């Protein structure tokens, strides 16, 4: 379980996030949605201890992220930002192998190699594993980074907009992969999403963030209503019954 209590972050006099109180239960996919600048990514990066908090406590599975040594936390939670500057001389496999760093400190054992292979196969990167990162498309590179995070084998996986820059096919593929991560590997996936329809279809829980505060938290059925979405996104949203569940129409 991830618990945020009284979490605050101040950017300047006017822009502040929090205080946020939130409990994300174990298991499944939780989507963070909300308008631009609402603080979704900030909450996620603070939870992943990439950003310090100004007040409050964040606990992941009982570990206080501000107090637990980063080394130990890396075995509990993995986090991926939306932009990663990449090293051109790395192959996909070498990148994925970095996910084993918290466990092996860079000295890979046969067991580590096996985990790396599994993560690569899980994301269908087998044919690409010896390619260099600069020889990949944006979507493939994104998958390679997700594979790295998976090979870290942490119970909690935090992803900041993994669908950024992906086309329809790759977005849907990525979400299916994340569902399988949650179901087959029994990890807890928390993901920032821009497209409410992806959240509605693939997530188990949706957390709506607005103006630095959590305004809604519930199942897709509870959140995917015209009234709630209109309030969260401050734009008229109609929810219609699509062939595969509710669809938000906002244009």
């Amino acid at each position: 379980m991830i618990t945020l209590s009284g979490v605050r972050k101040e950017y300047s006099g006017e822009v502040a996030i929090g205080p946020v109180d939130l409990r994300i239960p174990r298991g499944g996919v939780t989507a963070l949605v909300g308008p631009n600048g609402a603080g979704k990514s900030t909450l996620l990066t603070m939870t992943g201890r990439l950003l310090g908090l100004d007040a409050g406590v964040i606990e992941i599975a009982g570990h206080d992220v501000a107090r637990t040594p980063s080394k130990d936390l890396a075995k509990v939670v993995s986090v991926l930002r939306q932009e990663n500057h990449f090293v051109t001389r790395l192959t996909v496999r070498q990148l994925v192998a970095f996910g084993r760093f918290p466990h092996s400190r860079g000295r890979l054992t046969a067991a580590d190699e096996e985990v790396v292979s599994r993560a690569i196969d899980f994301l269908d990167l087998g044919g690409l594993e010896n390619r260099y990162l600069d020889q990949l498309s944006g979507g493939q590179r994104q998958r390679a980074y997700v594979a790295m995070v998976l090979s870290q084998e942490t119970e909690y996986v935090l992803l900041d907009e993994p669908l950024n820059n992906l086309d329809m096919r790759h977005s849907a593929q990525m979400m299916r992969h994340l569902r399988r991560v949650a179901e087959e590997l029994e990890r807890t996936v928390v993901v920032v999403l821009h497209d409410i329809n992806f959240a509605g279809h693939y997530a188990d829980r949706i957390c709506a963030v607005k103006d630095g505060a959590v305004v809604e938290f519930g199942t897709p059925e509870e959140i995917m209503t015209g009234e709630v979405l209109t309030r969260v996104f401050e734009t008229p949203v109609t929810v219609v019954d699509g062939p595969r569940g509710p669809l938000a129409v906002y244009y």
Partner: protein
Amino acid sequence: MAETTASRVTGPLPAPPARSSGALPTGRARRRYRTVVAVLGVLAAGFGFGLLAWDNPMPVGSDGFWRIAQMRGTNLVVMAVVAICQAVATVGFQTVTGNRVITPSIMGFEALYVAVQTTAVYFLGVAGVVAVQGLPQFALQLVLMVGFAMLLYGWLLSGRYANLQVMLLIGIVIGGGLASVSTFMQRLLTPSEFDVLAARLFGNVSNADASYLPLAVPLCLGAAVLLWAGSRRLDVVALGRDASTGLGLDHRRETMRVLFLVSVLMAVSTALVGPMTFLGFLVATLAYQFTGAHAHRYVFPVAVLTCFVVLSGAYFVMRNVFYANGVVSIIIELVGGLVFLFVILRKGRL
């Protein structure tokens, strides 16, 4: 350092798993790496021996030969120290700054060196050159440069502006300011004083005094070994701040550690032989091309060997072909620059 890696690589390797994440995953990559190390090793030994033996009037191996070689040996040791310092410092610095086109001299080490030398001559005349020579003065220059660097790093990386780019920018500005002050003081010198000073402002192996070595060698070896021992962590640092924090590395601490060691290495090299702006950048880039891998534990030895080959080769040519002792940095910048352009244009990527 180079030897240990070479023997580890050439030693009997266990049969690699079919799918390997090693830095040199295929047999071909390993053979290539071994060849590169061997060729560089032979070149380094060749130039090294050439410097000792060329123009040596005594027959090789005789008592007199070694007596003459011993006097030239100091230069060779100085070159080795400079090679280790420049190569290791530049590779480490480029990794923590996430930038492959800069050298640590950007942080103002050389400007500081030039300023110290110029100030001494300005206030003390020709005697000033002598006044800044000697082991205590050497130690003082080291302390000054490392202190200056740590002040800059510490202030800029721990305060409100904890940002590497801002730190680099301020380093450049301070370096530029120091350089301008030095240029101004140089304008006011008499021609003879200026002449004496100018000789010390070219990077020159003969600038070094053998009496500095007891301090320079341990510092250089210590810092280089510490950086090399942290190779695996540097590999992670290269992924960037967020990714390395996510993997459980204390990114800021690691950055500070590397920057401190880099400043020690750069200070030793600069205080020993003077500015060598282009050398580190050249050999770091070449080393990445030669190694064909990202892993620092493979890049460091190749960079050091390349640096020694470039330095001793340039020195050999200047001494025995052009009879122009002392302006090694000029030939390094000329030939090195051409080689560098050739490699980059052929490969098309850094």
